[in-house]
């Protein structure tokens, strides 16, 4: 009989695998509905926590008996607390969104590449964050990290949503908007009564964002079509494709370069990505059904 993780002794081989090969257990500390079909869960560790994820990385979440889903980290708290912002689209994400406070969920991770916002390379550069829909989730910790230490470059956060009701982290966006060190612009596809904000595509927001394209790094996340448009708009503005980082989605099934499902040409998106330079992915995304 295999050793139980819960009772595994420190230093045992089984314990060393927890969180990577099989899950570490976390408890849902809080559950917050962001929109009608998007939920943010705060998870606190029951077992040894997984290593702290870097902004842009993802984990595999396991609600008991349903399966695993690759979910980005939308925030990091104290004591190894993880935040995940999840839309119910399939069996596993529906199960995750239905978890109540106190429920237990398995976590493996963190996996994949990150936005690179911890790198001193970004100092002195302008950063433009472009988020479409739920694409704001993996970008949020990147903004937190950029705001959390002194930098000389400017920071812009451009957000597109389906409608005002579908806007995630609306309160936080409001607080960011009042900051002097941050340019925040939000637009929606479809306005609602009382909405006096922008109506249009997120790429329309590039025109008014303060950045010097020759000294800018762009972080882009959203549906693939939106990322193509955003990259095109950023390139047209003069940002080099090597400096446009986008977060790709493929079928991240095992997250550890074993299952083969997330391949995009030569890439294993689970390990080479999800964050990749536009210069790398543009020729791959241009091939249909690759």
């Amino acid at each position, binding site marked *: 009989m295999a050793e139980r993780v819960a009772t595994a002794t420190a230093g045992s081989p089984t314990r060393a695998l927890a969180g990577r090969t099989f899950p570490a257990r976390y408890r849902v500390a809080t559950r917050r509905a962001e929109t009608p*079909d998007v939920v943010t869960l705060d998870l606190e560790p029951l077992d040894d926590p997984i290593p702290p994820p870097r902004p842009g990385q993802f984990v595999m979440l396991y609600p008991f008996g*349903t*399966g*695993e*889903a*690759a979910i980005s980290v939308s925030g990091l708290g104290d004591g190894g607390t993880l935040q995940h912002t999840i*839309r119910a*689209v*399939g*069996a*596993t*994400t529906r199960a995750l969104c239905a978890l109540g406070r106190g429920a237990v969920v398995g976590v493996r991770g963190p996996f994949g590449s990150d936005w690179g916002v911890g790198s001193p390379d970004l100092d002195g550069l302008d950063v433009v964050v472009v988020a*479409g*829909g*739920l694409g704001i989730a993996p970008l949020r910790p990147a903004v937190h990290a950029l705001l959390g230490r002194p930098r000389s470059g400017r920071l812009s956060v451009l957000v*597109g*949503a*389906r409608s005002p009701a*579908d806007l995630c982290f609306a309160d936080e966006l409001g607080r960011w908007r009042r900051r002097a060190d941050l340019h925040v612009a939000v*637009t929606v*596809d*479809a*306005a609602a*009564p009382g*909405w*006096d*904000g*922008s*109506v*249009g*595509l997120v*790429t*329309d927001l590039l*025109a*008014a964002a303060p950045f010097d394209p020759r000294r800018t790094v762009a972080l882009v996340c*959203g*549906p693939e*079509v*939106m990322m193509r*448009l955003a990259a095109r708009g950023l390139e047209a503005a003069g940002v080099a494709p090597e400096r446009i980082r986008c977060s790709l989605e493929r079928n991240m*099934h095992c997250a550890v370069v074993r299952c083969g499902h997330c391949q995009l040409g030569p890439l294993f998106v689970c390990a080479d990505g999800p964050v990749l330079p536009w210069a790398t992915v543009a020729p791959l995304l241009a091939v249909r059904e690759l």
Partner: protein
Amino acid sequence: MRRTDIHALLGEHPFFAPLEPGDRDLIAGCGTNVVFPAGSVIAREGDAADRFYVLRDGRVAIEVHAPGRGPLVVATADAGDVVGWSWLVPPHRWRFDVRAVTDVHAVALDGACLRAKCDEDPALGYRLLRRFSGVVADRLEATRIRLLDLYGAPAPGPAPATPGGARG
């Protein structure tokens, strides 16, 4: 604002800057400075479209009025945007309502005057039309992309051959 100021403004504007200076002179000659307080109607669907606007400050909403639902915002435009092309194509009537969301400062350009000059000088007409078709193409693209409802719950694609795999 004096004409020379309008000329300077157009010279720095991404839409007008690529035009030849002579063309810009001509357009600036048709321009006047205007202010619309928040909530005011700038244009109404069906009215004669004799003007278009270069927004200098503020936000306007391009709207359709639906009975019982009020104004439905189709798109918004902000500082730097050019609003209105109905003056250029028959029947020269506004196709949407345009309303000031905030206080709006703009340069109003006399489309009727410009139209007459374009009719006299088709080469000028072609140059202007080329600029405006860029604006129209961008708006059309944005509209088409928004029609896809990209951020909504994804519509099912080809069905998997076998059930079972864990799904996002």
